């Protein structure tokens, strides 16, 4: 599969990176944390592995599903049985507050942090909660908005993409094929199309990228005309879709839809040619981590080809690496264009997003 990224949609500076190009670009610019990374267990690391083993533990905080997080950590544990890998689940907002407070009060328990909102990661970078660690694994990454500026503070461990998802059994003839097909379709009118609330980073990314592509009227007139409903979780959206309450999920998280499809739900994931909006979950090392070397080792594993394949398999995320295939059963075509917003500029757009969302939801 070819993965391409479109970033900073509104600006004319649209960068499209074909598969394979990014690695070359990075190899010239990147300054890994060490000059000669150690290769062990099939991946490169700049961590002091002996010290990591002596630390004996590593703690990951992440907002992905606990079972999936543990499945990924389990693979790490198989490679390093001396290091007990543990994880804590909470929503991004709660994790942010928790980590900030832990660090401010010298009570840090977390070593490696994952958040689903890059603006929060940028904030923690500025506050020096996250430390710089340019993993040797970054050589395999596309040089786009999937990592911090400068590199090494946080890097995406997976792309969370969203698209149109519909119930194959109830959609009838002529299912939508593109984003523009949604507006004006009578089937989806009257609280039968679902979105997410403003708390969702994925919704923020979808709003921004599609507003950049089609203009703000796409949302405030086109989608608002459908009188959609909004939820906090994809499980609420897909339960309604499977149960026949809704006709379409406009913000259908692909990894979530895949979970449902694996359970036998009659859902179809659409990959519009114009692009698939995506945000990311970024992983970084906490500066005051109690197990600093184990934290670096874990980050190297998570960002390596091997780690990414585990994440793609267990979490159904798309990998930002150019050498890792799309999740099996995702139904993704040979080439997917992801629309990734420029998170540096997103902080300033928050208020417009919230105002637009009130119009979209008729509040």
């Amino acid at each position, binding site marked *: 599969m070819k993965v391409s990224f479109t970033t900073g949609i509104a600006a004319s500076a649209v960068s499209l990176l074909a598969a394979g190009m990014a690695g070359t670009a990075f190899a010239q610019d990147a300054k890994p944390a060490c000059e000669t990374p150690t290769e062990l267990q099939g991946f490169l690391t700049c961590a002091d592995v002996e010290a990591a083993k002596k630390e004996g533990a590593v*703690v990951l905080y992440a*907002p*992905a*599903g*606990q*079972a999936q997080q*543990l499945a990924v950590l389990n693979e790490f544990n198989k490679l390093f049985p001396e290091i007990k890998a*543990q*994880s*804590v*689940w*909470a*929503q*991004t*907002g*709660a994790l*942010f*507050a*928790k980590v900030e*407070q*832990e660090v*401010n*009060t010298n*009570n840090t*328990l977390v070593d490696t942090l994952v958040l689903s*909102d890059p*603006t*929060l990661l940028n*904030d923690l970078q500025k*506050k020096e909660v996250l430390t710089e660690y340019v993993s040797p694994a970054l050589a395999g990454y596309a040089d786009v908005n999937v990592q911090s500026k400068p590199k090494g503070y946080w890097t995406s461990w997976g792309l969370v993409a969203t698209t149109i998802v519909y119930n194959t059994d109830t959609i009838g003839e002529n299912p939508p094929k593109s984003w523009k097909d949604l507006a004006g379709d009578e089937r989806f009118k009257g*609280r039968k199309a679902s979105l997410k*609330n*403003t*708390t969702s980073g994925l919704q923020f990314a979808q709003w921004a990228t599609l507003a950049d592509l089609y203009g703000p009227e796409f949302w405030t007139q086109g989608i608002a005309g459908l009188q959609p*409903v*909004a*939820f*906090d*979780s*994809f*499980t*609420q959206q897909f*339960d*309604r879709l*499977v*149960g*026949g*309450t809704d006709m379409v999920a406009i913000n259908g998280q692909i990894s*979530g839809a895949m*979970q*449902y499809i694996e*359970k*036998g*739900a009659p859902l179809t994931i659409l990959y519009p040619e114009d692009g698939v909006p995506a945000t990311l979950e970024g992983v970084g090392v906490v500066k005051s981590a109690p197990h600093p070397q184990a934290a670096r080792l874990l980050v190297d594993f998570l960002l390596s080809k091997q780690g990414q394949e585990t994440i793609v398999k267990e979490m159904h995320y798309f990998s930002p690496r150019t050498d890792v295939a799309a999740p099996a059963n995702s139904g993704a075509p040979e080439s997917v264009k992801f629309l990734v917003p420029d998170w540096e500029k997103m*902080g300033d757009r*928050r208020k417009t997003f*919230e105002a637009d969302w009130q119009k979209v*939801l008729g*509040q």
Partner: protein
Amino acid sequence: MRQAFFNRLKGELSAQQLTAYAALLVVVLLVAYPMVYLIEVALRVSAPNEPARYGLDNFSLVFSPRNIDTILNTIQLAVISTAIAIPCGFLAAWIIYRTDIPGKRFFERLFVLPYYVTPLVPALAWLALAAPQSGLINQIATRLGHDGPLVNISSLTGIAIVMAFTGGAVAFAIMGAAMQLLNPALEECSQVFGASKRQTLWRVTIPLMRPALLSATIFVFAEGLGAFAEPLILGATDNIQTISTRIYILAGSYPPAYGEAAALGISLLFIIVPLMFVYFRLLKNRDFATVTGKAYRMASIETGRSRAGLFTLVLVYGFVAVILPVLMLVINSFQRLSTIYFSTKVWTLDNYVQVFKSADHWNSIVNSLILGVTTATTGLLLMGFVVWVIYRSPLPPRVGRFIEYVVMVPVAIPRLVFAFGLLWAWLQFPGKMYGTLWLLWLAYLTVFLPLGVRTIASVVFQLDKSLEEAAKVTGASRFYHLRTITVPLLKPGLIAAWILLFIVSVRELGSSILLIGPNSKVISPSIVEAYQVIGREQAATLAVIQLAVLLLALMVMLRFTRRETF
């Protein structure tokens, strides 16, 4: 100089007074300490990275049209759910503890069941049952030819009814504890003087139950004001927001609006404090003692022809409020997809397999049980002591009243907001409690202080002071009198309070989610996580397991206490 100070203190204060003041200090530390942080955040108007500036800007945001709408929704939900829960809880407690209907023990256990699980669970169950299109009831109705949804649990009234089922359970538990101590002689006396059973209920039973009734009303109403899971899950379709769901949005937005969230949470105090004032005024100078030195036998009221009707009534209530949602959860736990019922392909045991093979889930269950037992046991001692300080200690009445108000503060602030206060406060505290079960234990003691104190108080109110005085006159020591008179007489009520504290601790969610560490996980956050990122089926599975563990633990506990005491 220090010695002189202590000597002076010893001279001026009795040992009892010193102990009482020590209790006051503990309560203030538990409640006021996190509140200080919460108030600081509500008053802070500067950005987190800037030097602190303070003002009332966040409080002025409380009066924005959107927040006013939210506040009105919250009040409506709290009023409707309380108006349903209290009569239901009272009637259920009266029928079960005071009449001669069959199957009392079964109903007694059944009615508190909704309170055993986090409110997320009944909300999920009722969504599966009565969502406008996909709910099982509506799917059946459609198949039988009904046009459109038969029931809509997503409406304001629908949400209030689901909240009332949980509220009804706590009302039943609080009033049931007090009802067991009711002296039947008073009711018999009323009937001897020619009053009918209905007149006796209205003129004797209900007035005697006033402390418990008021306690239950305040609790159900306050819980209604802080309700989160039900409006979050059921109110999404019709965009019904409450203060707690609004706070959830504010805290989760970027940058997180902690100031507005804290101000909104604290503003609830302006509703609850006047209510508490009314409550304490109503109780002032009244004698509710029904347990006196005179011997009596707890006799059931013979209901005669009404027996079958009353039995049917509790059976229907039990079925709708408890059995149906629990059954729905069990069904969901065996499904791959919780909205498809009429297909053979959706049934599976996978959800249980997934849960049981996870060491993490096992640790969470064990931690929850440890916390349940320790919080209930230490909480009973601490809260019992606080009740004694408030109502029976030789402290000036003003001090007692002050403690009464302080104790009630956690109930007036939505748990979601109070949890941030706990996090900010206890992480600043010297010592490394964070990431251990100790911190969760402290948090639970704090957030359940109001529930524990009011439950124990409503029981203690019924104990006549003359018993203490009689013991004193006969020369019994305070401890001897406590061990041989007070505790045995209060035992049923105290056991009920222990069970209540155990249950609420095991199902606690709001503060746990922020305070857990890698080695101190508990079960309720796993249910939320399953609901948010896996699916309703696994959330239902965890909820069923949580319920089973609670029931098992309670059976063991009840068997033990029965053997020891009766």
